[in-house]
């Protein structure tokens, strides 16, 4: 075996992939080319195990302006305005260094959004950690990841308006940090990443390029580097929100003045992926003089410059006659701007270094030629336990009141305030509903209308039944939007799974994608973009399959945006939607130590959609004073949450046979309002008093509910 073939394996390429490279090139790749190819053909960049299955997702809809394939998806929100949004994972970096990993995750998703020309207006996060009670590591990851998200979002002036956090043992080694960003732009300001116009100048904007994130490619370092030099290659990327704030304002001003032909952010695989994608999408070539790239440290090699993942950088294409004006604006924003090359008509990505060609590849080889693999899914046989049982906190011997208090105080259901207090939810003066006020965040638009956004995912339920569990995530997001009166426009997803080469993980992935597709089709909500994170595994096994869904909707009147709190004593309380919850996959089952297994309730999309429409209409008409979807912990927990939020009690009688703690998320709601407004609904009780009283089941003071809910997560932070 030659040195070169040994090297490709160290870089993560299979022998078959390397053979294909040899035949596509008709020669051996140079070191720089091999580095570039190994990253572009990685799972992270090429989606080689997921691309085929992702084709099953519906991507068209009346509001879609940009779909998957751009830096972010974009939907029309009326009045000539568009909202761009995307969710992306930063799981592995966060497991290594949670503060910087989470911070740079936020930084990266912000760049994706302003890369399409939209001003970032909101961030949400979906986080997963191991059990905080038993694990010092999980508490550390939680505390530092939250601090990192806050550090970046707060410093850059983009509000963090929502998110979710769950704790399960399978995330102990592989925490999940998924960040979602929304941006706002007039239609005419939107820009694509496709490079165009041979002779136009390629300009690198932002931070200096260092050896950040070179990682695996470092095996290519020339032999001249001595022992110990490995330490000079930081695997942790450090985020600089101040640099990004200036970069963002600079890019937005450049776009406002219509000075750019195309714009792209630098993410994974740095210059290599951004330039090759710009070239391939535009059907043009790019020539990069890599030694013009301003570097942070001496002695960097061309392959390091080409694959560095240094943060806070963007790449743009500028017509030569506009270059001077571009550079002047960058200087005003204290943002470094360096012409590093030009657009050509060759269709090739050529990299020069000190006058020599170090890489010369067809852009399509980098972007399109990576082989796509078929998954080999196999449903685990009956009786196979994929995820073990957890510790049992309840054994069935407790009263309903004790059970309710334990649920409210469990880390998965407790108040998120200790986390949300570390984020700024109000900067930019658009936030109509902050976390804890409603099931979805609501942001006012300059048109007088508003958008709503929610993010959801429940790995435990997906583990029980990947198809139904994933569909439930879509239903729950849509239900959250309905509670504030919003109609869904589109969604983004992040598919966090284990090793897809394992048949049962492949099965989870394909089933989950099918479930997402079914739910999207049924609700008429297109997928406009997303991200896949595979190989989330520890020696003990894969994470729970965790598709995370972020959904954006629109509502006409922000002053009527729904709230979740019961507010007026004497109001009637009604149950909306067909609701046949079961215990399998529930939070209560978890607290009883049961493994995530067993059937989930059947999906009846038509009935769920009708319930959403009913609640949306009630809220939008201003007919109800509160609306809340029934999710984890079942109807008893939903009622308790409405009581605690409003500081007022309630007396209800549940329909006969309804499991008070059973779950069927995304299908049913609790609403409250004047009795006459709720006529025709299934009224189950009244708001009032100082306790939550469920007939023949429990009576607990609201103060007691609140204190259980307040302590549940706070005690670990």
């Amino acid at each position, binding site marked *: 075996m030659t040195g070169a073939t040994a090297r490709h394996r160290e870089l993560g390429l299979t022998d078959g992939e390397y053979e294909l490279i040899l035949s596509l090139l008709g020669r051996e790749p140079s070191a720089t080319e091999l580095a570039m190819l190994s990253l572009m053909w990685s799972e992270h960049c090429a989606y080689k195990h997921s691309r085929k299955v992702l084709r099953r997702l519906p991507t068209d809809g009346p509001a879609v302006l940009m779909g998957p394939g751009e830096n972010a998806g974009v939907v029309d929100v009326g009045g000539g305005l568009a909202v761009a949004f995307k969710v992306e994972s930063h799981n592995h970096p966060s497991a290594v260094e949670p503060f910087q990993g989470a911070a740079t995750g936020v930084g990266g998703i912000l760049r994706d959004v302003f890369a399409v020309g939209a001003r970032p207006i909101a961030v949400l996060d979906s986080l997963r950690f191991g059990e905080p009670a038993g694990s010092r590591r999980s508490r550390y990851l939680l505390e530092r990841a939250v601090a990192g998200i806050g550090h970046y979002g707060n410093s850059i002036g983009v509000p963090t308006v929502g998110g979710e956090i769950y704790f399960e043992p399978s995330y102990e080694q592989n925490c999940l940090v998924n960040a979602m960003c929304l941006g706002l732009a007039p239609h005419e300001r939107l820009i694509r990443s496709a490079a165009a116009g041979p002779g136009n100048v390629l300009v690198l904007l932002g931070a200096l390029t260092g050896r950040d994130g070179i990682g695996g490619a470092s095996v290519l370092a020339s032999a001249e580097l001595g022992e110990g030099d490995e330490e000079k290659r930081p695997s942790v990327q450090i985020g600089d929100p101040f640099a990004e704030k200036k970069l963002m304002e600079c890019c937005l001003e450049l776009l406002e003045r219509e000075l750019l032909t195309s714009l792209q952010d630098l993410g994974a695989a740095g210059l290599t992926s951004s330039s090759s994608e710009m070239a391939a999408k535009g059907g043009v070539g790019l020539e990069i003089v890599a030694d013009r790239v301003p570097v942070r440290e001496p002695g960097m090699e061309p392959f390091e410059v080409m694959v560095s993942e240094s943060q806070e950088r963007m790449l743009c294409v500028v017509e030569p006659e506009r270059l001077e004006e571009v550079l002047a604006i960058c200087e005003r924003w*204290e943002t470094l701007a360096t012409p590093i090359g030009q657009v050509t008509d060759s269709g090739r990505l050529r990299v020069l270094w000190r006058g020599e060609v170090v890489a010369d590849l067809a852009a399509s080889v980098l972007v399109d030629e990576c082989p796509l693999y078929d998954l080999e899914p196999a449903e685990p046989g009956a009786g196979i336990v994929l995820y073990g049982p957890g510790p049992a906190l309840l054994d069935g011997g407790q009263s309903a009141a004790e059970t309710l208090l334990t649920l409210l105080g469990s880390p998965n259901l407790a108040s998120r305030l200790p986390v949300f*207090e570390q984020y700024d939810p109000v*900067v930019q003066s658009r936030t109509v509903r902050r976390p804890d006020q409603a099931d979805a965040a609501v942001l006012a638009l300059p048109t007088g209308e508003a958008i709503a956004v929610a993010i959801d995912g429940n790995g435990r339920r997906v583990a029980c039944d990947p198809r139904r569990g994933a569909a439930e995530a879509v239903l729950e997001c849509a239900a959250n939007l309905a509670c504030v009166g919003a109609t869904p426009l589109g969604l983004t997803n992040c598919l966090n799974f284990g090793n897809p080469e394992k048949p049962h993980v492949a099965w989870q992935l394909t089933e989950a994608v099918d479930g997402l597709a079914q739910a999207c089709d049924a609700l008429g909500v297109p997928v406009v973009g997303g991200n896949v994170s595979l190989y989330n595994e520890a020696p003990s096994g894969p994470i729970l399959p965790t598709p995370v869904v972020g959904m954006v909707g629109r509502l006409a009147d*922000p002053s009527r945006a729904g709230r979740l709190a019961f507010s007026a004593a004497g109001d009637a309380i009604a149950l909306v939607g067909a609701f046949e919850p079961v215990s399998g996959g529930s939070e209560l089952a978890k607290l009883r130590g049961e493994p995530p297994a067993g059937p989930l309730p059947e999906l009846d999309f038509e009935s769920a959609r009708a319930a959403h429409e009913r609640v949306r209409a009630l809220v939008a008409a201003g007919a109800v004073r509160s609306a809340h979807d029934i999710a984890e912990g079942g109807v008893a927990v939903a009622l308790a949450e409405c009581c605690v939020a409003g500081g007022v009690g309630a007396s209800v009688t549940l329909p006969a046979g309804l499991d008070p703690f059973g779950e069927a998320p995304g299908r049913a709601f609790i609403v409250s309002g004047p009795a006459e407004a709720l006529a025709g609904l299934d009224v189950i009780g009244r708001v009032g008093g100082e306790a939550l009283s469920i007939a023949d089941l429990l009576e607990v003071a609201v103060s007691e509910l609140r204190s259980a809910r307040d302590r549940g997560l706070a005690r670990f932070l």
Partner: protein
Amino acid sequence: MRFGVIRFPGSCDDVDALLACRRVGEAELLWHADRDLRGVDAVVVPGGFSYGDYLRAGAIARFAPVMAQVAEFARAGGIVLGICNGFQVLCEAGLLPGALLPNTSLRFVFRQVALEVASTDSPFTCGCEIGRRLSIPVKHTTGRFYAPADQLRALHAEDRILLRYAPGHNPNGSLDDIAGVCNEGRNVFGLMPHPEHAVDPLTGSVDGLAIFESIRAHVAGRALV
């Protein structure tokens, strides 16, 4: 009247302050590198993370070219309002006494807090009554007001503490629950809470308007003299 809101690299609440000022008058942004206040009647140094808050919050912004003009404007009796990071900048610039230290929690805190008006003898609180409660959010990591004993005594003796956190609402460990103080001339005021984020019933409370309306009333009254 016309407000000028300074924009530093890293300002985040500059546009929010601009929108709040426009509820009571005219307002424009002033660029940090310009040495011109363009004849505004009042200057707002807004919140955010000027210069990334690197070194110390406000330490670098105070040397921005525009700050020399702000200092001169203040010495001449001009109205200067510093909010959050702006408060930190004004303390660093020596236009206000004391300093802002990291919160005792060592964490960023966002919270809707209750404030009490402690003095109405200022252009910033003249439209309020003593003891009036204002619901206004705080959001900061470095907001614990500190002043050496002699400065603190002077602040009390000269009635220069304009706003306090209501009992139980001190979010950061500030001395004597101090939320905002003014200079000796009473024309420069800094506070950690964000009145510009409490001006619209759609997005929260409207209690912050009291500060901006007080300024407008003061400037209008001054114009009559």
